[in-house]
């Protein structure tokens, strides 16, 4: 079993996956941020690869990506940083990036370097499931890299089953039809969707992301799934710079 699935199963419930954009606020704090997340008991770390055109992302992630790219972060630098620090990090790291980033880097080289850098899995929101299955699934398995596919409230049943079958990390439930970074309360309609998917009794664990930004939304999401993913809210916390205290008080505010 890959590290991502194992971490989720061992935790059992209220799994907390925290996203941040690699290189924001600065490149030299990537490792510090990851270690602080680990020290504060975060279960999974989702490392965003900053992209010039992040289609599915709201302002917080767009801005952080722009800053990270201005800071000079690229995949060569990131893989090197991760490789050097991997022995100090037990928490599984998942990379989230757009397909074009993997494609241009050279897909095999990308996966080799990620595996060598201790990365445990990927989320690539614009890689079609069919193409993943025919072209990449074996390559991921050979390197013990997990994949997690997204579903949304508009995803139909048979497609949810396909995402379940192909996700050996977790099924990433996008909480609502929206881009990242919303801060509203979770609605009844969303809860109906959470329940509908829960009742399908999927093989894979489910984590709910997009719009999970505080203790309430984390608790609610965790009640209907195995845990939740926090991204934009954490990025906003780091906007004026990293400190260990900020990370620990943020994680406490989420976990409660």
């Amino acid at each position, binding site marked *: 079993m890959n590290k991502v699935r194992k971490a989720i199963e061992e935790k059992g419930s209220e799994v907390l996956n925290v996203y941040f954009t690699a290189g924001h606020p600065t490149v030299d704090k990537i490792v510090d941020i990851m270690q602080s997340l680990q020290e504060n008991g975060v279960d999974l770390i989702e490392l965003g690869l900053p992209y010039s055109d992040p289609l599915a992302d709201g302002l917080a992630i767009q801005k952080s990506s722009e800053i990270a790219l201005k800071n000079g972060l690229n995949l060569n630098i990131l893989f090197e940083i991760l490789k050097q620090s991997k022995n100090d990090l037990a928490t599984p790291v998942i990379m989230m990036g757009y*397909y074009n980033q993997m494609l241009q880097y050279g897909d095999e080289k990308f996966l080799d370097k990620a595996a060598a850098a201790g990365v445990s899995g990927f989320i690539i929101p614009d890689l079609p499931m069919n193409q993943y299955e025919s072209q990449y699934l074996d390559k991921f398995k050979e390197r013990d890299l997990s994949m997690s596919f997204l579903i*949304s409230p*508009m995803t139909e049943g048979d497609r949810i089953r396909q995402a379940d079958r192909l996700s050996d990390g977790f099924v990433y439930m996008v909480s609502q039809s929206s881009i990242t970074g919303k801060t509203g309360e979770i609605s009844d309609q969303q809860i109906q969707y959470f329940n509908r998917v829960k009742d399908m009794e999927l093989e894979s664990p489910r984590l709910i992301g997009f719009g999970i930004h505080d203790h309430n939304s984390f608790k609610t999401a965790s009640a209907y799934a195995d845990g939740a993913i926090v991204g934009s809210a954490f990025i906003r916390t780091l906007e004026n710079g990293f400190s260990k205290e900020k990370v620990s008080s943020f994680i406490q505010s989420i976990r409660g």
Partner: protein
Amino acid sequence: MKYRNPDEQGFYGEFGGAYIPEMLYANVENLRRVYQDILDDPTFLKQYHDLLRDYVGRPSPLYYAKNLSTKYNTNIYLKREDLNHTGAHKINNTIGQILIAQRLGKKRIIAETGAGQHGVATATVCALMGLDCVVYMGAVDIERQAPNVARMKMMGATVVPAESGSKTLKDATNEAIRDWINNAEDTHYIIGSAIGPHPYPDMVTKLQAVVSEEIAKQIFEKTGKDYPDYVVACVGGGSNAAGAFYYFLEDERVKLILAEAAGKGIDSGHSAATSILGKKGVIHGCMTLLMQDEFGQIEEPYSLSAGLDYPGIGPMHAHLITTKRAKVYAATDDEAMQAVYELSKIEGIIPALETAHALAIIPRIGAKPDDNVVISLSGRGDKDLTTFMNYIPN
């Protein structure tokens, strides 16, 4: 049919497909399931062609440009899309898509625009059909195409500036896609060029195909030959080229020529010559040629013309270029400007700055005295007057 139709997954050779986040899947898939049936439906076709005739003013003339022909020692015909209602080819597509949106039961329309021609064409059909309209436009383009912004607003559209990246067409497209993710249920996204995830490139191409259908008839009436030797079109995303080429794609007697924007020069670092500077990759949901760095970060293109500074190109065009069915030339800002002034002076037609790129390459395509060359005169230059007046010739 090697070139005309994509396969079931939307691929033209190695280009096309649908690389989209899951939040868009249901909408795009729904469109994919129904678009071909709608395009073939007699009721749709009647509504579409009636509106093209009575509202847009089609067929647009094919005009023998005598003075230009004399100057370049060949026979040049201008396909007058500039005479369409709203002043460009863009409205052929928006008329079709608004009818499709109505059938899908959508209440709200969004669009991206560069030069503002597609934005205006979208605002127009929304006013006509009484649908809400939001147009995303790069903040830089809002500045340089002010008359079109005013027109959109007069017709009741909301124009939202895109402030990210280079604040031009690519960024407006990103914002429109984000809007669509946020409003998936009630909104239809009218993409303005032959780009985006399948089925958009094919759908837009088929809605623009009326242009070449008319050219085929008109060239026969005028020359007694049922095909032109050349069809030349400028290319941003590729919709006017797709329309002008469509009926000739499988006819190898017809040479297909694309004019890209070289900006300040192909190697100047300020260019939008996508097929020359681009590599295969994914932009706005499709696999195509695009300008990007070694890490797949999309580069910010430059052209003086707001409708050609797109870092990608339609997947059909990428296929036509890489298989050598179409040939590409690039024209600089200066060359395009000279072409604007030339056509204005010798034919009394002020073309759009985008269109002028197609005119600028005429001397280079190798047309002989007996050849018939059709140029897609994709739009008129009214929107560009400030740019023309501020231009200082080099």
